């Protein structure tokens, strides 16, 4: 099977099966686009009627072509595709691009699978079916039926939607945004985004990668590739739809909280990709990130001629995680000359509504030249006094100054006709000029997020030290009893085997043992009945809390036995469990689930009984290292509670991280477990650690799932 994607993106020869004389047919458009696009390799139109199309000899079959063929494009009805794939395989073609539709997207999986089987046997790969084709600037190959010519540039687009892909070509042309590659993945019968990304990873021409995804087939394979690429070039993702897993009613909180696309979102973030909410945002980011220099540090200034717009930008900066520089002394020194006395040198720098182009020039040259400032967001509100004719030159010059200083800058210019004209003109030159504050700030935020991930030190996590054999034995026992969950004491044993602290507990078969156990554990203790027939212990009066001395233990034992016998005279009671009484602390939830696409996924958040109401949780795919786990914790709204509020001591954050890594390790090494949830895991101050109070472990339901 070919993994040399160079033959796909930089083929030396292409055959178009279904090439047509009729300009209304796709087969004609593709051939025409290929020739007009300036493709330099050999082009072989294939059509049983033979003859000549657009000056090229037409072959009756791909096998009749004399030379080698790297890529075949199929633009024929679905019913002929199988045979065309067979012929291509016989010919030794390396890649087949199937434009034709009528396969799995309408339920015809059989033919699609058969084509993939034939291709694999011949070491051939398939793009599509149901794709609009692909473009590669490297060899000027426009093998699509797009109506718009593609402009060469540095943005690579991978799209699962064909229609959207064609629209994107049109849009990039309008925005004057050049593309290095655009590929429509279609039904993804064989080649997926992850394959195409492997080519783009070291593709010098591609400065930014943008992906439109509807569903992920093999998330576990995608994750490392995304991580690698995001450290080399900005990776922008737009995803629609929801994960299958999330749509299912889940048995654990972790499972149900993982609904919607929370996992996808978390994984994208973890991989350093930038997730855009809309096409508009994605295109803005692509354009900006293609040309913006990477900032040296996080010190950003806003330069504005209006207070209101400055406040809007400040709010947007907070939303996008942009740090505003606030060293008043340096700001005053830097901007004093460019700011009138009634303006402000506090960030946002307000050069006032009376500012002219020269004033902007001075105010924007200052940050470009200042060593203490790393990036600039420029705001302009159209005023009657401003010399509008100088707006475009001012933007060009100050942009150049920032580029020379290797500092990013973005512009939000708001106003009427002259402003509209300026935006249109400057956009054609790919200058980062926007009609509103939000996109100007959002672009800068995306750049900072990319830069932060790229420069992050990455340490590989090998997994925690857990006793896998002991856990497997526990699972064996549960399976032997035909259970798809572990009993409470089994789940506790898993915690012990993983080194996650649980409250100390002893099973006592008689009263004297219970008293002895309580004395050994130390008061206060909790006592609960041990009976496989009594599931709801508190309903049966089988639970006693906060027992502070021997007499209370004796009474509680007597009460439990008495109550449980009254509750169910036939219940098999094997004793009582005497457990350390856990004092109150911060109740967190730590869990892990096996996602159908991304594999083991770890969750943490605010726990207790309100976990599903608050939904204050974060996800990451496993493996993740200490630092990523820490970032995950920092992401939840309740993080300040871990730091300690109102004079409380800081909580055992390292302990929580350790537990997160351990549950992830359990799930990754014990493949019969589907869900683990510790809720609550009570977290105390650093010196006191934490305790896993309630642990639920679910096993995969059926042999098929395993």
């Amino acid at each position, binding site marked *: 099977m070919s993994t040399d994607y160079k033959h796909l993106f930089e083929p030396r020869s292409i055959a178009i099966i279904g090439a047509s004389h009729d300009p209304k047919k796709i087969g004609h458009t593709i051939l025409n686009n290929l020739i007009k696009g300036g493709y330099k390799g050999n082009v072989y139109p294939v059509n049983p009627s033979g003859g000549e199309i657009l000056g090229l000899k037409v072959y009756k079959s791909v096998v009749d072509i004399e030379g080698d063929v790297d890529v075949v494009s199929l633009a024929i009805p679905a019913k002929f595709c199988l045979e065309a794939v067979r012929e291509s395989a016989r010919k030794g073609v390396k890649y087949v691009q199937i434009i034709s539709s009528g396969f799995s997207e309408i339920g015809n999986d059989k033919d699609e699978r058969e084509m993939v089987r034939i291709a694999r046997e011949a070491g051939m790969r398939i793009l599509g079916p149901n794709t609009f084709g692909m473009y590669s600037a490297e060899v000027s190959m426009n093998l699509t039926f797009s109506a718009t010519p593609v402009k060469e540039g540095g943005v690579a687009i991978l799209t699962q939607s064909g229609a959207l892909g064609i629209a994107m070509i049109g849009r990039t042309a309008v925005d004057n945004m050049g593309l290095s590659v655009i590929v429509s993945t279609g039904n993804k019968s064989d080649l997926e985004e992850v394959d195409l990304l492997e080519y783009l990873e070291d593709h010098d021409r591609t400065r930014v990668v943008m992906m439109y995804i509807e569903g992920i087939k093999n998330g576990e394979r995608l994750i490392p590739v995304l991580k690698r690429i995001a450290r080399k070039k900005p990776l922008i993702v737009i995803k629609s739809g929801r994960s299958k897993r999330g749509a299912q009613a889940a048995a654990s909180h972790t499972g149900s909280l993982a609904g919607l696309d929370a996992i996808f979102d978390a994984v994208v973030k973890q991989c350093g990709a930038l997730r855009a909410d809309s096409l508009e945002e994605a295109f803005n980011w692509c354009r900006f990130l293609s040309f913006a220099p990477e900032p040296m540090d996080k010190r950003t200034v806003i330069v504005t001629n209006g207070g209101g717009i400055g406040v809007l930008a400040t709010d947007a900066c907070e939303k996008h995680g942009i740090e505003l520089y606030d060293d008043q002394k340096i700001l005053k020194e830097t901007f004093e000359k460019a700011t009138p006395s009634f303006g402000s040198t506090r960030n946002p720098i307000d050069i006032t509504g009376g500012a002219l182009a020269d004033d902007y020039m001075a105010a924007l040259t200052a940050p470009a030249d200042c060593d203490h400032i790393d990036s600039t967001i420029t705001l302009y509100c159209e005023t009657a006094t401003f010399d509008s004719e100088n707006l475009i030159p001012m933007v060009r010059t100050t942009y150049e100054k920032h580029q020379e200083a290797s500092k990013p800058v973005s512009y939000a210019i708001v106003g009427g006709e002259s402003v509209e004209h300026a935006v249109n003109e400057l956009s054609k030159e790919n200058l980062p000029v926007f009609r509103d504050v939000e996109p100007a700030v959002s672009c800068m935020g995306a750049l900072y997020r990319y830069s932060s991930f790229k420069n992050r030190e990455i340490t590989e996590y090998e997994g925690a030290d857990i006793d896998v054999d002991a856990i497997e034995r526990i699972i064996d026992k549960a399976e032997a009893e035909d259970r798809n969950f572990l009993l409470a004491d089994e789940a506790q044993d898993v915690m012990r085997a993983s080194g996650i602290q649980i409250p100390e507990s002893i099973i006592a078969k008689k009263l004297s043992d219970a008293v002895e156990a309580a004395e050994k554990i130390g008061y206060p203790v909790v006592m609960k009945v041990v009976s496989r027939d009594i599931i709801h212990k508190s309903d049966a009066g089988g639970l006693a809390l906060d027992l502070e001395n021997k007499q209370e233990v*004796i*009474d509680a034992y007597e009460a439990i036995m008495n109550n449980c016998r009254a509750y169910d005279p036939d219940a098999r009671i094997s004793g009582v469990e005497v457990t350390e009484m856990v004092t109150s602390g911060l109740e967190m939830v730590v869990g892990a689930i096996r996602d159908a696409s991304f594999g083991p996924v770890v969750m943490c958040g605010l726990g207790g009984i309100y976990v599903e109401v608050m939904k204050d949780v974060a996800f990451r795919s496993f493996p993740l290292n200490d630092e990523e786990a820490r970032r995950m914790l920092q992401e939840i709204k309740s993080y300040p509670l871990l730091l300690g509020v109102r004079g409380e001591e800081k909580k055992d954050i390292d302990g929580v991280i350790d537990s997160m890594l351990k549950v992830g390790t359990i799930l990754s090494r014990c493949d019969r477990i589907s869900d683990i949830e510790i809720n609550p895991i009570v977290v105390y101050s650093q010196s006191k650690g934490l305790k896993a109070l309630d642990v639920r472990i679910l096993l995969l339901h059926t042999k098929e799932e395993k």
Partner: protein
Amino acid sequence: MKSAVFASIREGSGKTSVIVGIMAALKQNYGYVKPIGDRLIYKRKRNRDYDSHLVTDLFQLSEEAESITLGFDHSKLRYMYDDETIRKAVAELVDKAGKDRDGVLIEAGKDIFYGSSLRLDPLSLAQHTGSNLVFIVSGDSESVIDDLAFARRNMNMEGIPKCSVIVNKVHDIEEFEDLHLRQLQDMGYEILGLLPYKERLTRFTVSYLAQRFYAKIVAGEDGLSNTVKNVFVGAMSTDEILRNPLFNKENKFLITSGDRTDMILAALEGDTSGILMTNNILPPSNIISRANEKNIPLLLVSMDTFNASAKFGHLETLLTKDNEEMIRMLTQLAEKYIKLDHIFG
């Protein structure tokens, strides 16, 4: 010191109710102990017997309910006492209860055998303390006669000063006197009284049901002393219920799932003493408000309707402190039908 052990041969003879009636009727200062408990209440990390708690509370005895019962679970009692120390413990219990009082009523366990292995059965208690033994018996007359004959013939009554009988829940006193009284007297029992059957004494209060079901009281707390006369299990459509004559009976207690809001609302608008909502499903706030307005307790339990109904079927009637009508009736019955001055004499 005057003392008497009140014992039943079979469970459910109405021993505690009779004792309450006697204590109230005696109008003197008597103590009460129940060395071996059988209806355990676990509250504030201590165990107390339901009957001990009722009597101490009702007659405002200075002793705490926890202190007049040695224990419930045999394993616990064996862990704490041996034959010798248990005898001493019982003697101390009775001595303490009788101090500065006119006498002590000692209530035995649930039946004549209960506590035998610990020497806490009624006969042992009477022998340890030198008390009179009073059998409280009820049921069909043949069983009553058989039980008392068996006890007299096969049980060692040595050391017990006097053995007497109170026959409880007698449907036809005249007939019993004509047919059986002589026979009992011939066995050597003194007949202290025959108490007539009263249907009203078999009714539950809602507070008692709340306790027995370990229920959460969601609303209508002021109506916990409501008496239950009829029980209705709501498992059909509301239209059917409204047509059902049982649903329209007075003082009914409805058992239904918490999500049957239609049925709960219908019950709240009728003559209902209380509602047990099963499956741990809380009804909407308007229903809770309505129940509060009408003082109809809503009790919430996690068990399902079938199990709740089954449990209800096994409940025994127990006297509660708030059931003043029942206490008044028991007192009147004791005054009228029991030879109070023969109990200790």
